[in-house]
């Protein structure tokens, strides 16, 4: 068994002013070099689970550890710097003026020390990732002017360019055309294997390619884990 990257022990999460827990009695352990798909109907708690793993939501009961650090600890920021997140609501307004290059570079600069700039190695990494995602000709475009699919690719590039140990992807195919989904699935899988990373993908639709490459599929319903198929660690 490899080292555990994500650990949830008897976790309950609730939203403010809502009595019913959004997550109930969650026990989940995910190791390295694993690609795990979390599926389930709308409102089943998939996104809540992802945000709980990252520590964006704190459990009112139970323990959550990311890269061995409890998410309630102040050191969680250290763990998060080794993670990437693609949010479900990624769409920017048409007035958003940051260019694609700035948006991608931001994720690298934010983990560097003050006054640091992008190194030639960083620029090379950005070029490689955008090329793999087919957005190399959009680097100087304002992100707000791009289509939903293009924006989603930009956010995926932003996530991958950090070379994270843990990759959290919330509905990464929602705006991607069906023809490209297979290619992106393979890209994510390749990254996971090559970097020995852990990837959690929330998706209510599991395409053929995704079910083929996933190590495990976790099904959620009403805030509970109802089924786990495959190896999580």
């Amino acid at each position: 068994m490899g080292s555990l990257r994500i650990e949830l022990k008897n976790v309950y999460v609730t939203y403010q002013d809502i009595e019913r827990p959004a997550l109930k009695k969650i026990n989940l352990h995910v190791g390295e070099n694993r690609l795990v798909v979390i599926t389930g109907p709308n409102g089943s708690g998939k996104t809540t689970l992802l945000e709980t793993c990252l520590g964006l939501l704190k459990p009112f009961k139970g323990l959550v550890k990311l890269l061995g650090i409890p998410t309630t600890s102040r050191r969680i920021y250290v763990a998060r710097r080794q993670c990437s997140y693609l949010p479900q609501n990624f769409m920017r307004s048409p007035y958003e003026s940051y260019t694609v290059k700035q948006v991608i570079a931001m994720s690298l600069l934010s983990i560097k020390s003050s006054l640091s700039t992008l190194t030639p190695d960083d620029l090379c990494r950005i070029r490689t990732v955008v090329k793999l995602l087919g957005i190399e000709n959009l680097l100087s475009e304002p992100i707000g002017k791009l289509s939903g699919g293009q924006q989603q690719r930009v956010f995926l590039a932003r996530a991958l360019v950090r070379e994270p140990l843990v990759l959290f992807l919330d509905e990464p195919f929602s705006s991607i055309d069906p023809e490209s989904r297979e290619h992106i699935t393979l890209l994510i899988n390749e990254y996971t294997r090559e970097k020995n990373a852990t990837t959690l993908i929330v998706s209510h639709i599991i395409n053929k390619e995704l079910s083929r490459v996933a190590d495990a599929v976790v099904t959620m319903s009403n805030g509970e884990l109802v089924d786990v198929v495959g190896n999580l660690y």
Partner: protein
Amino acid sequence: MLEIIFISLVIGGLMLALLGYYISKLGLSTIAFSAAHAALAGAAISSILNSDPYTLPAILTLFLGLILGVILPRTSIEVLNNLSMMFFSLFNSIALIAIYLSNVVVLSTTRVGGLLWGSPLAVTIDRFVYIMILTCVFITYLMLTRSKLDAIVFDKKLAEAEGINVQFYSIVIITFMCIALVLMLEVIGGFLVFSLLYVPYIVSIIVTSRADIQLVIAGLFGAIITPLGAFLSLILDTPIGSTIALIVSLSAIIIYITKKIHGVLKNFI
């Protein structure tokens, strides 16, 4: 002394405008609003007690700003807005009661006049030095943390998920803002000082949609329009704070209309 007042207004206008950019982008506007009135209440009480104009306003505004800053990530925007408005009412009423309780003759003094409508005479050497130091520290801080602040401005939640302590950076901005408000309060006037936080930012978003240029435009606008308003108040013999706020607001409206007309003409031609 006139040069010192002029430089203080340029630098103070610049500092408030730069802070206003981040305050608005980070969704801290209502906190700024109530913090400005906490400073006003502190300054009003200080004037009755005849104590120094910095300590009590700084204590009250920092206390409120930091409490709201700590609450910020733990509550909804709606609750935060309601809390801010409640504190705004509380401190506003304290300020007015304190001014009312002071001797009527005092109302004509520079100190209380400064509280209400601002006074260039509030710029003393020590205030000038404090404004210069704060601005230098703030600009250095911006240069050191620009990449992190940009990531937060772009998407708070994503920045938090990527390991940036959003609350820490927000609280630092709130702290700078509270101190800046205390320093500029008696120069611009307690009721209008926050207009120098918001209006330059509003002008910048009217002029351009590019976030990196917005910061520069807001700063330049604040630095130019603040001494210009003060100069006009001297010529017209009107209160400095109200004149600056009037000029700032009118300029924003004129820029907005000009931009609209330009857009219509461009489409027409």
